[in-house]
């Protein structure tokens, strides 16, 4: 008979259950308050999709036990350059290519920098955050009109529909699940995150795996930047500012272990991104202001980390 660890099973399904509960609460409160729930759902998908895509790519970095704090700024720079290129060429495809290309280049630069200087990846991403924020300001002042760069809304209006967004999300999610669960790369990523010493002695190159992780994350950032332009074609210095933090919260909220490793899951990003948006919408329905909403999110973040690591801490503390 199989040994069933109840706590592990609960922790495994908890993020999905939390998402379903949040959906139910949103539906009930929305119905009671007589709002258009279907319209609300569309808004939730619109808001979630960018964070979900960026977070899905970022899972590769988190699996290695590291994190990238510059993701939001990278989305902003990629979107701004994509917008500039569109305004110069009027080509949507080129805009998409620039968004993805720039994001991948930034990600590669991060990982190569970490490899060259032998630094923890998150250290280089802190430096990158400052650089990218400066680039955002420079791009806007050099190319924009006043304090923004605007892509004509009629140019992207045809793409601003849920079908395309969900399709992009689905395709990227499928790619990541495939790479993560069905290729040597994914297996090596998880093993490296679990125990870098043992991974090295099993012939796994941490530098190569780090580069792959950042490339996957870069693709997610690029696609996120493209969808940002479609959703809000007027780009300012505030574009995607909250994405970086939302990605971190979403990944943890979706049940991803904070230490990465073998228990990492791609779907954590998707579940977490939608759960977070439902939570934000529920707080709006209860007329909670933005400040209180942020505090509630922070409290939930701490609670989730506390519960997710309770088993681990109980084992470690006595030593």
């Amino acid at each position, binding site marked *: 008979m*199989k040994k069933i660890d109840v706590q592990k099973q609960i922790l495994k399904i908890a993020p999905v259950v939390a998402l379903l509960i949040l959906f139910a609460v949103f539906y009930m409160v929305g119905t009671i308050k007589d709002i258009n729930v279907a319209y609300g759902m569309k808004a939730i998908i619109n808001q979630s999709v960018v964070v979900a895509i960026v977070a899905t790519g970022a899972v590769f970095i988190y699996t290695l036990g590291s994190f990238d704090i510059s993701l939001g700024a990278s989305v902003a720079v990629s979107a701004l350059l994509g917008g500039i290129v569109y305004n110069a060429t009027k080509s949507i495809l080129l805009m998409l290519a620039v968004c993805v290309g720039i994001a991948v280049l930034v990600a590669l630069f991060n990982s190569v920098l970490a490899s060259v200087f032998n630094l923890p990846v998150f250290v280089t991403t802190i430096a990158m955050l400052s650089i990218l924020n400066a680039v955002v300001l420079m791009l806007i002042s050099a190319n924009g009109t006043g304090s923004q760069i605007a892509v004509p809304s009629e140019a992207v209006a045809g793409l601003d529909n849920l079908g395309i967004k969900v399709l992009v999300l689905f395709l990227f999610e499928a790619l990541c699940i495939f790479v993560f*669960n069905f290729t040597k790369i994914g*297996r090596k990523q998880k093993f490296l995150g*679990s125990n870098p010493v043992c*991974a090295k*002695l*099993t012939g796994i190159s941490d530098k190569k795996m780090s580069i792959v992780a950042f490339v996957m994350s870069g693709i997610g950032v690029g696609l996120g930047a493209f969808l940002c332009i479609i959703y809000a074609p007027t780009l300012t210095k505030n574009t995607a500012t909250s994405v970086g933090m939302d990605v971190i919260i979403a990944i943890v909220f979706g049940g991803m272990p904070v230490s990465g*490793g*073998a228990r990492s899951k791609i779907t954590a990003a998707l579940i977490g991104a939608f759960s977070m948006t439902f939570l934000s919408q529920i707080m709006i329905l209860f007329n909670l202001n933005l400040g209180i909403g942020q505090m509630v999110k922070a409290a939930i973040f701490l609670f989730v980390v506390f519960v997710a690591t309770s088993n681990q801490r109980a084992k470690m503390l006595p030593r």
Partner: protein
Amino acid sequence: MVKDTIIEVKHMEKRFGSTIALNNVNITINRGQIIGLIGENGSGKSTVTSIISGMQRADSGEMIFRGEKWQPDSMLYALDHGIGMIVQENGTVPGITVAENIFIGEYEKFKSFSAGNGRKWGFIRRRQMMAAAEKVLDNIGVTHIAPEMLTGALDLQDRKLIEIAKIINKNPDVLIVDETTTALSQIGRDIIYKIMNRMKEENKAVIFISHDLDEIIRVCDALTILRDGKIIITFKKDEFDEQLIKTSMIGRELQGDYYRSDYDGSYESEVVLEIKNVQLNNRLKDFNLQLHKGEILGIGGLSHCGMHELGKVLFRSIMPDAGEVLVHGKNIKDEAEAMKQKMGYVAKDRDIESLCLNASIRDNIAIAGLDEFAVNNFLVLPNKESKYVQEQIDSLSIKCTDKDQYVSALSGGNKQKVVFGKWIGRGSEILILDCPTRGVDIGVKQAMYQLMYTMKKAGKSIIIISEEMSELIGMADRLVVMKDGRIMKEFPRSKELCEADIIQYMI
């Protein structure tokens, strides 16, 4: 000396899911006694002691310690109240100094000012802490470890010694030593034997878990044997009989050979692995060695003689300052290339270097065999992976609930089988085994020795690095003795070879 009872375990039961770990266990330990607790991996030894030491709780039963009911809720509580355990795994924090590890949880006593309520405040007086740590280390006879050193920079043995110092500093009435000696060289072992004997003289008690029967017979006053979570028998010192103990442990007589029985030390002339003029700090000095096809090469010496570093240099996980490592005449530059040349490396520090404890058996075995079953060397199909892993589990008889069980939940012997499965599954032709039978019971040891011999017969080449001379004598075609980074002596396989012949070249 009064031989009164110090701790008593009554009707203890413990289950992990459907697995019965302890079944009505009763043990009585007297003052002034060193009691050995032995049994196969997974027999319940560590479960009993982990409950006594507060690491976990029993499902039922009771414990009496110094005449009072004993129910510790943590290891810290147990240690503060008289029971300390030196654990099998790593019990130190790597990112802090040796002194900080020794006094972990007690930093307050090094603060400057008294708050009047028994508590203190102010900055921690670092110099005072270092001096106190030095005294604690001196007290157990360890003089080569500086208190200000970062713990993570030390090797397994030294980290273990720090842990011993930390426990002994709390002056426990009962000391539990859980398979600690397997991580120690003879010097380390002597330190722990002295501590155990001192505790015995002070009318305290020691519970000693080890798979080294010679050691346990020599050191203990009584032996309690556990099998499948039950107490089988307790022997007094005058009843010790090695064969009877072995039979009681495994529930049957050991069939077949323990080591290999032949004294034919022949192998093929083809050199498969060669190390030329290697220099590594002071660990290896102008080192040259050849391994041949179908050879079992034993490398022995004291723990710090350089043999463990040699294993890593051979697998290219340490870059030497000079010299080269050739596999089939080809220079290799890293572990990945070594693996391409069908090399495998079993590290001494199994839990850190050979396994991911928080990953499954599947993850651990499959990771080294990806090249073997991945379609087009890229695509991992779950059914192919499962088949590959299950083959290793079956062929090595790994005791587990299923292949998705976490390795951390396995006993020492089964963990080591997973490591073997990792390398054997991918068809390794050259195996470097650093202390391959550390912390495994005699049944598993015998199986591993027979596996090595079968591999030799199949033309595979094996290097066994070990501090156990008996296993080198028992298994090697050729035995090299190292001292201070150099080869001191080479012995061919011989019926006449004995430990005394070797030891004179080690020390």
